[in-house]
């Protein structure tokens, strides 16, 4: 599953450069630097509290780094408002599923299309013809996503009552509806059983290809990371510990030590 990068694609799609985040006394991230190449699945690993979610929150502009920069296709995202990030092409899922609980599966995914549509207050209230066309187009796209993620059976159900694994797929579908270039998945295997994790791995690779994505995957489940990641970055206490192919990072003594300190990898 390795990618041979042609010279044209040599420029990284996402560059994390010396990103530092501090919470009071703790440095949750300390000068973290790495690049993501187009089409990659990059696995971000590290023990609990290593700073993985904090990095995600910087990438979706929920946290402001005190130092460093994040470039998407060469352009800094830190100058953008949080609401502008989705439109730039960064989509995400959340470690503890963050859906719109009272809305249907379909409406949750529809909201994912927010940044790719234009309906404004007045045109929406009057349901102008172009709004109707846009809604129909959106619905077609939603149907595709619902099919791809096998959500057809629950599409009109309220998400609050759905099993956790299904909710995670809804969240993934919602992120896809925003047509991201880079998709951030925060522990997608968390709470899934062995078989579900296996299916998830295939699903991530399939949507990566079908939707032309670059995926940043935070995962505790080493088996999954080793199976689908092209490249791995290991964090510990907010600093980058190692970077390289899955096999290389896995056998890195510093990584083994960090994991033995908390849990067996």
């Amino acid at each position, binding site marked *: 599953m390795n990618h041979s990068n042609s010279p044209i694609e040599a420029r990284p799609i996402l560059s994390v450069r010396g990103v530092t985040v501090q919470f009071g006394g703790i440095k949750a991230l300390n000068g973290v630097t790495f690049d993501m190449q187009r089409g990659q699945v990059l696995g971000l690993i590290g023990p609990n509290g290593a700073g993985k979610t904090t990095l995600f929150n910087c990438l*979706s502009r*929920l946290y402001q780094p005190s130092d460093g920069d994040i470039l998407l296709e060469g352009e800094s995202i830190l100058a953008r*408002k*949080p*609401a*502008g*990030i*989705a*439109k730039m092409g960064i*989509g*995400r899922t*959340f470690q503890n599923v*963050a*859906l*719109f*609980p*009272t*809305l*249907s599966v379909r*409406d949750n995914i*529809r*909201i*994912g299309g*927010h*940044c790719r*549509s*234009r*309906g*404004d*207050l007045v045109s*929406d*209230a*009057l*349901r102008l013809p172009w*709004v109707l066309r*846009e*809604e129909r187009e959106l619905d077609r796209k939603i149907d595709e996503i619902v099919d791809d993620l096998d959500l057809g059976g629950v599409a*009109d159900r*309220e998400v609050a009552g759905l099993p956790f694994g299904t909710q995670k797929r809804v969240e993934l579908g*919602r992120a896809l509806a*925003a047509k991201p270039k880079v998709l951030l998945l925060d522990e997608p295997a968390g709470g899934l059983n062995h078989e579900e994790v296996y299916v998830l791995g295939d699903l991530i690779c399939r949507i990566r290809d079908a939707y032309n994505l670059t995926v940043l995957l935070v995962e505790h489940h080493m088996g999954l990371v080793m199976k689908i990641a092209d490249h791995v970055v290991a964090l510990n206490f907010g600093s980058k510990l190692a970077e390289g192919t899955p096999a290389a990072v896995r056998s890195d003594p510093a990584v083994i030590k960090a994991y033995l300190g908390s849990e067996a990898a």
Partner: protein
Amino acid sequence: MSAIEETLGQTVAAVEVRKSSMPTVARLVLLLGLLVIPLGVSDFVVFQVTTVLIYAIAILALNLLTGASGQFSLGQSAFYAVGAYTAAIMMEVYGVNYALTLPAAGVICFLFGFLFGLPALRLSGVYLALATFALAVAMPQIPKLAVLEPWTGGVHGLVVNKPEAPFDLPLSQDAWLYYFTLSVAVVIYWLCANLLRSRTGRAMLAVRDNEIAASALGVDLSLYKTLAFGTSAAFTGVAGALGAIVVQFVAPDSFTFQLSIAIFVGMIVGGVGWLPGSLVGAVFIVFVPNLAEGISKGLSGAVFGVILFAVIFALPHGARQIADWIAKRLPR
């Protein structure tokens, strides 16, 4: 988090997804009923039913704010007052046709609500309720200001002329105003229903359900919260303008915070987030106080309180609970 906030939060969270708020048949029957109501009843009854429609618009507007965007307001009487004064001043001071005052009231109240929504962005739950309450308490003083008196008529208020039915229609003034109000109410209902199933409405629902997720999907939280305030204020302002025309009088004390409370009660009784419930809520706040007075003149307040308590106790989700109950038992 206070108990009040929790309870209100639950009421809002309980709003469930519905493709269409009411089946088409039910809607047609309701509309037909509304069309024939003024036939063969006294002008006073027609006036009362017109008032119901006006309150229904105001409750609908609050429903858009609370039901869709999850923000509370006890300040709706202020927007209502601005709409009412806009209509009265335009008609009586500047001689503008009554029908033209409605869009003007809508636009002015939209701006007012939008601007009020900006500072309110920093507040949520009970704190927002308190800030809007402060607005409602302050508002009745404004028209009394000496500088505004030439327009507002100060404490005495303004008397508004009652419009005649146009095109020589064989309708009494009251019946005409009823149909005029009904048309406006239908249009506003249509606009609200359109909004709720549009990109804008979904963005508001997203903000209500999960701000962080909404933001990560590109929903501008401040924009949609203030738009919800503006839109709600605009429709409330139109209701206020209609109120001025129908009651033929505006005065500062017609718009105390009790009006806000009445609108709030109407929304709860109808069912938060269920648009058709607005009409039920309006019927409740117009007729139940009369009913209470009929039962006991001296204790009408207490009787009203007991009835309200009983209704909320039996139907915590308001009239929508009855609608749901019926819908479940209807053959598909």
